[in-house]
């Protein structure tokens, strides 16, 4: 249903949007973290961009693994291992596949969620990436269960992710450097949840055009 060319377009668009939002993500992180999220993520996706050509014609698993390894070796901090794990785990369920279907999409998403939970020893409500990613995954799964098509399902995932980002403003950070602020972290939007939202939005933009 979806061939691996579309994945390359998605990865490229994620990079474009992350790099465009570099200052925005860094500013969010400056308030409750160590002011490097945008810088680190841009560094990672610039390195991914440089590998887009070699991804051409590869299977879903290989492409995702290349993205994972590149992010792991260039992003640093906690985001590197966390996003790296998400892409790496997702790659394992589509290894060798040139085309994927709905079930593969659900599996990839689920692996990404479980990987980040395990790596960060965190869950929904800790004010992290997962506050955007888990609602997005749940919305996607529900949409598929209701028989919606992929475009609609991702539209709903994007909306859920955005709601998740908004929700992070109301909760206390329990993980990462922001957690040292305790209650003072309330009122501030989580940079990790925000970068996750940007990535899911990037998937949508590509699906809309195709």
């Amino acid at each position: 249903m979806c061939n691996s060319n579309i994945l390359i377009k998605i990865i490229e668009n994620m990079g474009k949007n992350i790099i465009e939002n570099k200052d925005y993500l860094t500013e969010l992180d400056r308030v409750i973290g160590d002011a490097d999220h945008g810088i680190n993520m841009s560094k990672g996706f610039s390195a991914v961009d440089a590998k887009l050509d070699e991804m051409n014609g590869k299977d879903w698993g290989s492409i995702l693994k290349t993205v994972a390894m590149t992010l792991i070796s260039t992003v640093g901090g906690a985001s590197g291992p966390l996003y790296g794990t998400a892409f790496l785990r997702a790659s394992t369920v589509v290894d060798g596949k040139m085309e994927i279907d709905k079930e593969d999409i659900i599996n990839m998403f689920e692996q990404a969620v479980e990987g980040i939970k395990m790596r960060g020893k965190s869950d929904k409500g800790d004010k992290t990436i997962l506050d955007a990613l888990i609602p997005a995954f749940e919305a996607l799964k529900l949409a598929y269960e209701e028989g919606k098509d992929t475009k609609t399902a991702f539209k709903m995932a994007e909306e859920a992710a955005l709601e998740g980002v908004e929700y992070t403003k109301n909760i206390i950070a329990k993980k990462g450097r922001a957690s040292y602020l305790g209650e003072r972290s309330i009122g501030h939007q989580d940079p990790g949840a925000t970068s996750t939202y940007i990535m899911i939005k990037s998937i949508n933009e590509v699906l809309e055009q195709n």
Partner: protein
Amino acid sequence: MKKIINHKEDVVEEMLQGMVKAHPEYLKRIDDSNVLVRKDAPIKGKVALVSGGGSGHEPAHGGFVGLGMLDGAAAGEVFTSPTPEQILKGIKAVDGGKGVLLIIKNYSGDVMNFEMAAELAQMEGIEVQQVIVNDDVAVEDSTFTVGRRGIAGTIFVHKIAGAAAEKGMDLDDVKRVAEKTIKNVKSMGMSLTPCVVPGVGKPSCEIGEDEMEIGLGIHGEPGIRKEKIKPAREIANILLSNILEDMKLEKDDEVAVMVNGLGGTPLMELYILNREVDNLLNEKGIKIYKTLVGEYMTSLEMAGASISVLKLDDELKQLLDAKADTPAFRIL
């Protein structure tokens, strides 16, 4: 900030170069990495041990690379975990076909990056297990940790697991003795002055001229309390009481003791502290089988010390006595 450095950005790189130049008979550096491994790595048929963490704790961990201890150590930036890619390079460089044990100090960043590296290594077909050292009884959760922190007791884990691997134990067995050591070792420290991270240039915290901080972390993260400086005997008593409360030692139990300097404390003071530790343990009828005094796990120029107590059994005694030959730890 006064330091003997060139540029603050280059401290880790230049330190590693200096270390290899100082100990060419023990160490070699893996190309394009901050990983030091045994000169004779990989050793075929032996379980390999890899540790590491942020820099600024020297001689930990590169100083413990050698016969009977670590096969490799990955160095991160000052007080920052090495990346998974670096750790993976270390794992691949030392794997001798019998698997690799990672010895991780319990800090969130270290655990995340080492576990990521373990997963990558497993994907490449290398058997990897890990243990997490959490010997510091001072605080339960800290700015860098969920649970207790890993400090100088880690050196006992290097020594004992290293001896087990050298003896030819398999990965499961090496992990077992490492975990037994972690369970049996408790530590606690105190500080007189903070440390200055080169890239930051300012002290990590403030400790008054007449004060000490009990339980200050090895990155300058908060401890339990600040109080007026006291004589060595009382300092030993404060730290040991906390350690022993957690260990439930009985009369005639045998222990190994480590009095560890944090970087800015003269050996003279460490020996004085050791005298007090020895007296206090003797009063309780606890037998000291082995004593180590010196700098094993430092915190840049921080003045202060930590005490570690390891409860021994026959197996641990034998492994503790086994030969070790590394730049910073020798039992010959």
